């Protein structure tokens, strides 16, 4: 079955980033397809490669990046939410005159249309967060 996941909560905020990851991982391990993971609102914070959590804590961003690498996941970050919260890729840095980027290369920034398409193309859309 084809699933898409929407995450509205930042990493280390409460539990939604963890729940979404563990659900996605369980679905992949059961042989389901993940059409797209869409990071929205504070969820865009899950994509910054500059996080450095304590060594004895889980690394939420790295965990997504590794799962993305392993299963070639389409990890999409909402552009408007990213701009507000300072999540930047090369294109956004150029467009908005920023001197740095911080997005992990396993993620890509795109528009809300990607969420709508995911909802239409997938059998199930599961939403995590506030």
């Amino acid at each position, binding site marked *: *079955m084809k*699933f898409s996941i929407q995450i*509205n909560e930042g990493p280390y905020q*409460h*539990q*939604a980033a963890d*729940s979404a990851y*563990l*659900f996605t*991982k*369980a*679905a992949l*391990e*059961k042989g*389901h397809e993940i059409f797209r993971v869409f990071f929205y609102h504070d969820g865009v914070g899950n994509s910054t490669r500059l996080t450095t959590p304590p060594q004895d804590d889980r690394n939420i961003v790295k965990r997504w990046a590794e799962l993305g690498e392993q299963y070639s996941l389409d990890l999409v970050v909402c552009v408007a939410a990213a701009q507000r919260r300072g999540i930047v890729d090369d294109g956004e840095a150029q467009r908005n005159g920023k001197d740095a980027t911080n997005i992990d290369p396993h993620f890509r920034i795109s528009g809300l249309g990607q969420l709508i398409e995911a909802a239409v193309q997938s*059998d*199930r*859309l*599961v*939403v*995590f*967060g*506030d």
Partner: protein
Amino acid sequence: MSELHTVNKSPYEKNSFDSCIGYAQAGSAVLLFEDGVYAAMSGGATEAKVKAAEGVKFYALGPDMKARGLSVDRVIEGVEIVDYAGFVDLAAEHSKVVSWV
């Protein structure tokens, strides 16, 4: 059309559990996870509501209960404990997933 409803907030923090069971129809399922698992515990304000929701099947996420030190022996009668794989199965078995946050 049977739906899976998910509730991730404590019933003592927000009213999403009440909203959910007010909407859930017979034949649908409710999965309690994150702080939502508190609604699965017997002896609380939610027990009567869970028992009154006729035809609605309730589930609670075991790992989230364990993380909060909640004993599976104390869940309301009829509430089934599932893991993340069980959560995925529930999402697949129902025609849509409605997240009450």
